[in-house]
């Protein structure tokens, strides 16, 4: 079963890194996920200032705005999609993710399966 691990980064320090984990931690985690053979997809998102929002109104009119800007705690820093047997295993991997520390949080969402 596939699960999305949505990484909500914790408060960032001056250098832009989240509290409680180093780039080495992230590299080590990334390697663990790959080595375990459970990685479906995973990306780290570019800085939030690069985000752009698109909305299409009922009249079909397109609105493009800068943003969104969120408080640091709500900032989505990246994601993994992993394929593991059940929620307990997914939670185990989420807890190992460096993004879960230092005020950060990982939201675990099962990916809908529309097949048989």
């Amino acid at each position, binding site marked *: *079963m596939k699960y999305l691990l949505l990484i909500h980064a914790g408060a960032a320090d001056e250098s832009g890194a989240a509290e409680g984990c180093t780039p080495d931690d992230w590299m080590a985690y990334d390697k663990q996920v790959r080595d375990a053979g459970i990685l479906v997809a995973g990306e780290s998102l570019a800085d939030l200032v690069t985000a752009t929002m698109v909305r299409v109104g009922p009249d079909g009119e397109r609105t493009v705005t800068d943003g969104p800007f969120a408080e640091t705690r709500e900032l989505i820093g990246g994601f993994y999609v992993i394929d593991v*047997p*059940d*929620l*307990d295993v997914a*939670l185990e991997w989420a807890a190992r993710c460096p993004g879960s520390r230092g005020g950060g949080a990982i939201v*675990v969402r*099962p990916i809908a399966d529309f097949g*048989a």
Partner: protein
Amino acid sequence: MPDEGTGEESRANASVEHVFREERGRLLAALVRRFGDLDLAEDVTSEAIEAALARWPIDGVPERPGAWLLTTARRRAVDRLRRDQAYAARLAILQAEAEREGEAAPAEDGGLPDERLALFFTCAHPALAAEDRGALTLRCLAGLTTPEVARAFLTPTATMAQRIVRAKKKISRARIPFRVPASDELPARLPGVLQVLYSLFTEGYVASSGPHLQRADLAEEAIRLARILHRLLPGERETAGLLALMLLVHARRAARTGPDGALVLLADQDRALWDRPMIDEGAALTVQALTGGPPGPYGVQAAIAALHDEAADADATDWSQIVALYDVLLAVTPSPVIALNRAVAVAMRDGPQAGLDLLDALADDPRLRRHHPFFVARAELLTRLDRVPEAVTAYRQALDLAGTAPDRAHLLRKIDALTRPGPP
């Protein structure tokens, strides 16, 4: 319900009732385990019980009723899966598994392997909303119907039905596994299960709202489930501790309310009404809970309850021991409510002023500001110190926060006694 018919028929019905209560949880757990689907398992469990109600009065009660029900339920489940094309692939896997296992190794009694432990952990999974865990446990393990669960939590049936549907949906769609945690995970997961049972018990013991002070049926259901859990995990001392605590508290049920339904405080209870066999059983379990390692919070609370239960009256209570146990408890699980209870015990040991000093030190804790027992304790100690106006104020504060009618009546009587003019 069928009418009371022949003796044979009513005997069969009583038998079904009994099997329903005793075996429903085991049956459900076994089916969930096999089919991985709580809804399907519930449906076929009910169908099997209906089939039993129809067959047993005619054919007689089978020798192994649990096994009969399991076989019937399993056949129904397979039939359903066969009809449902979407499940065809799953069915093939199940059949392959069944062939590999043979006809599942029968357990020593009645032929049902006991898989309820996995169900306990599933119903109390931390990924479920806290308020849903108790409801699901009552539904799946105690076998209560949704309206019964709704009544237990004083919730409208429709609301409870929605909550149960939501919880079951999460279990199946997020794939919360049906399994017993490995021994290295148990210390992290077991407290959640114990918490669910203890919440059920306290909801029965001191209803948070409503007209009645206690709802013995809910407390008894919690005790029944704790007994099952203790049987399934005999080596877990905190499980023994929780069961002991519940028994030692529940033993006082007959003395806790007066003839008018009003609250009777521990010190004023008629101890002849206490359930002695239940106290003895609780005391023995307390010893088990405190033997062989550092004590856990339920074991220590059971020990405190046992000291109360063993005293001939309030004055004969070993307050020094109780204070010492509260010190242990505070070290294991620091909490302002425990500190409050400790302050009351200190007042019993060293006098009301000593207790009041401790309470005043706790007064700023925001968690106690909405906790009416804090103001009751304060009022009692102020009364004993003859500081009547302050005591009345404290009782009024408690009254503002008290939930049940008997609680409120008790407080109003206290205020009335203190404010009535004339000699005390």
